[in-house]
């Protein structure tokens, strides 16, 4: 009889106690554990996958694949990382695979050529529609280099601490901080350029 290892989940005890998942795993009720995990993380994984792939069909495919793998690999999950870090680690890899498979990688994730212009923050108190800004941001994120996009998404879309993001990305926190610090000006430039283009229309 397989005994499931119980994840520590120290990192996420503030947001999710996951006691129910741990109890289900302890009782070898994998069906219930997976159902709870899908209920808890399914939509977040989907949104994460959408930001990473910028494709709804790919995001859906990634989400389903992630939970198939979670079920398959539960026995090998050692609980060294939190459950969510483990799930989003899988999601991140599947996103990279999915984008590669669709041969969109090169076009979507290459960096824009560096611009000499600094971000333009002269406009006072811009009132930008949040929905529009989110759409623009999604398309600008896709233009970042994969490593930079990973860092920004984990830190500010998933709203993880750098330590938590580090557990998923496999890079140390300082490296991620540097990547985010370099990526944000590029993101700001891209957003400003799109906003100016819209304003001229």
């Amino acid at each position, binding site marked *: 009889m397989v005994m499931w290892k119980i994840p520590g989940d120290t990192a996420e005890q503030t947001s999710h106690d996951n006691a129910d998942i741990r109890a289900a795993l302890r009782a070898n009720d994998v069906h219930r554990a997976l159902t709870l995990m899908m209920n808890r993380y399914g939509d977040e994984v989907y949104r994460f996958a959408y930001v990473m792939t910028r494709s709804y069909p790919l995001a859906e495919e990634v989400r389903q694949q992630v939970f198939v793998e979670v079920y398959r690999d539960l026995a090998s999950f050692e609980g060294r990382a939190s459950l969510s870090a483990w799930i989003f680690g899988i999601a991140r890899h599947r996103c990279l695979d999915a984008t590669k498979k669709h041969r969109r990688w090169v076009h979507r994730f290459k960096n824009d050529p560096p611009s000499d212009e600094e971000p*333009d*923050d002269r406009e006072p108190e811009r009132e930008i529609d949040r929905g529009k800004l989110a759409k623009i941001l999604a398309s600008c994120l896709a233009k970042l280099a994969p490593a930079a996009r990973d860092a920004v998404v984990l830190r500010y879309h998933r709203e993880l601490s750098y330590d938590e993001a580090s557990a998923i990305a496999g890079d140390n926190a300082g490296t991620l901080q540097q990547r985010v610090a370099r990526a944000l000006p590029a993101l700001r430039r891209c957003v400003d350029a799109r906003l100016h283009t819209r304003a001229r229309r």
Partner: protein
Amino acid sequence: MSCERYWREGIVLVEHGLDDPHREGCESCTRAHASRQELIEALPTIGAGDTGDPHWQAKVWRRLREQRPRGLRRWHWQLASALAAACFLVLWIGRDRTQIADVHPRIEIIKGGVAMRSLAAHVGDHLRVTVGETSDVWIYRVDRLALACRARTPSAGCAPSAHGMVVDWRLSVPGQHWVLVIEAAGALRPRGNLDEDLGALESADVSYEKHRVPVR
């Protein structure tokens, strides 16, 4: 004017969770920081409210169900592969045994107890001929018979083995030596002269192998 310093240095401090004293007294840097904040606040809203396929969980379960039979099929394939490998092994061993009973003739020059790779021999070396159990061996020095071994019959220099016979002949004089391995044991008796014996073998349509061994 845009605060270049903020986007180069100030933002690094912010990401490292450090204070940026410069920003306090710099209006453009404060604006730049607000601009960054706007991004940071907007980032979590990407895809907010999108939940995708409402039946996605059912699809996950279906995938898992579909994978199980596939796993079984994989197990069947593995079993079939193992059985095929076992059959091959049995056949191979059988084939090997058949071959053992009919050992292909091997001619070797033994120098100081070591089998040489070539048939170039010197006086003092040994000629070793290994044949199957249905072969006779005739050895000629120049063109005269020096040794005749009958299959399965022990005699000087001729030692039957488990799978045939091993002939050992010391090469004591230089010159051309010939080894005839006659496939049909006992079909003919050698007359003593190479040419005559070859003629007799040809006439009787007995198959044989002829090997030349030069001795210096």
